[in-house]
């Protein structure tokens, strides 16, 4: 497993308002899809179908506060990840979504100002550990919360499952 990059570069696909709920990200009617890759097909399907249609691998979703509020559905995070989103930058995240994202290896970056200082199409450089975002297009830099070491460890492992898999493989199946 290659180590995940800690400085991400890509363009902003969309800048979204506050309270983007998990039904907007991934409609409830598709919850019986349990193949993670397939969840990508329904990303933002009802409210913003254009996002998935135009998304390029590694692009960023930027949002105002409380991104991912609502349901605990992990498909919201997996749809973003498997559609190719490089990271979500939001003023704040709902807690279950945040944990789901990190557990699936999708960087979720808290930046109170990103949604004000980024426009669709802007190229960004996002430093996950340094707590810094550079808007290359607009030539400005702003702060983000550095990911905590636990989150970095999970992202570098590729998510919680590969992390646990490795842990139990080295422990030869023994429980801690």
């Amino acid at each position, binding site marked *: 497993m290659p180590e995940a990059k800690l400085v991400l570069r890509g363009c902003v696909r969309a800048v979204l308002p506050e309270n983007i709920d998990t039904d*907007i990200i991934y409609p409830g009617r598709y*919850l019986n899809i*349990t193949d993670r890759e397939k969840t990508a097909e329904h990303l933002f399907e009802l409210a913003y179908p254009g996002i998935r249609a135009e998304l390029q691998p590694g692009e960023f979703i930027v949002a105002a506060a409380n991104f991912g509020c609502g*349901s*605990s559905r992990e498909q919201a995070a997996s749809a973003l990840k498997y559609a190719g989103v490089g990271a979500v930058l939001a003023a704040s995240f709902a807690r279950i979504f945040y944990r789901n994202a990190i557990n699936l290896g999708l960087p979720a970056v808290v930046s109170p100002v990103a949604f004000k200082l980024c426009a669709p199409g802007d190229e960004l450089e996002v430093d996950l550990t340094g707590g810094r975002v550079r808007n290359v297009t607009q030539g400005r830099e702003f702060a983000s919360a550095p990911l905590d070491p*636990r989150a970095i460890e999970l992202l570098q492992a590729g998510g919680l499952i590969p992390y646990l*898999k490795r842990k*139990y493989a080295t422990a030869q*199946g023994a*429980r801690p």
Partner: protein
Amino acid sequence: MGMTIAEKILARASSRASVRPDEIVVANVDLAMSHENADLVRKSFLEIGVPRVWDPSKIVIIFDHRIPAESEKTATTHKAVREFVAAQGITNFYDVGRGGICHQVLAERGHVKPGMVVVGTDSHTTTHGAFGAFATGIGATEMAGVWAEGALWFKVPSTIRIEVTGEFRPWISAKDLILHIIGRLGAAGADYRAVEFDGSAIRSMTAASRMVLANLSMEMGAKAAFTPVPEIGPDPAAVYERVLHIDAGRDIAEPQIACPHSVDNVKPLSAVGELPVHQAVLGSCTNGRVEDFEIAARIVAGREVHPRTRLIVIPASQQVYREAMRLGYLETLMAAGAIINPPGCGPCVGVHQGILAAGEVCVSSTNRNFIGRMGSKDSSVYLASPAVVAASAIAGRLAHPEALEPVHA
């Protein structure tokens, strides 16, 4: 330093003398609940490569979102979960016809005890704080980790205390109270935090009504929510991030309505204006219990559901269904023109049994009104109390029970 209820429970579960907000603890899990998304958990669990779950007696699986299976795809996931449950010796399994909505079943079958750490792959797991448990929602992958290890890390939340005194006005219920609070605090107002409800108005509530408060606390982001139980309470010197005082009679003058498309878009009924209603839904883990059917039956008795409106009633569980039947509430509702769906989530999550067409308006006792939640992205859902849902079904428009024509004998 004194501890709040959340702090006390997390300290005990992580074998510490005390904990403070923002500390990270690894807590032992007492109960791990999943519904159909147990299939996602199962897949992740099998990937980890641990042969057995940590403790099959602490895992509860309840089918509710799509029962009976509405499609071959769902039937296939149900089947996979049944096989897994049998192979792992998980006996707390409530299949179609044995349970109902996960939160209702967990409560009525006595799985939850005060002081427990409960995790569930459903955001409304906060409901179980009504029984003094630290209960919170997690994702499927995280649950796979719990199935393997029986423990999970938590950031200790700070706590908001909400004290409610005074007497509720006629027709005003726990649903109106919590919608009022969500309207004040906002959809992220309790994000990452625990909420403690207390005060004379809370202490005189039924268990079912307390569940409404803990359940809907999720809609302001709460990680856990508590109503008072004798077994565990905060220390007198507990430190709160914020204390809110509400006088139920003074502050909640009329029924509260959460308007599309967010739960914190709350208005008093009279401010919503004239609103024709095509569908009225009475059910869900928020308001699908016997007391909700009792009030609805009282309102619709001797009346008829408006020709423009469909009234869909979904008991939260088999037990609720039987009790409401025994007490005659279902008979009364059906006589008025309601259809009774099988116990479960019904149309709440937009899958089946009452999906809305474009342009349709629904008044619902459920807990979410997000875009497309109950069907078309061009439909709208207004969240309200069971009393308002029943009255609106009769009036064919959003209505206060007091606004209905008197019943002619």
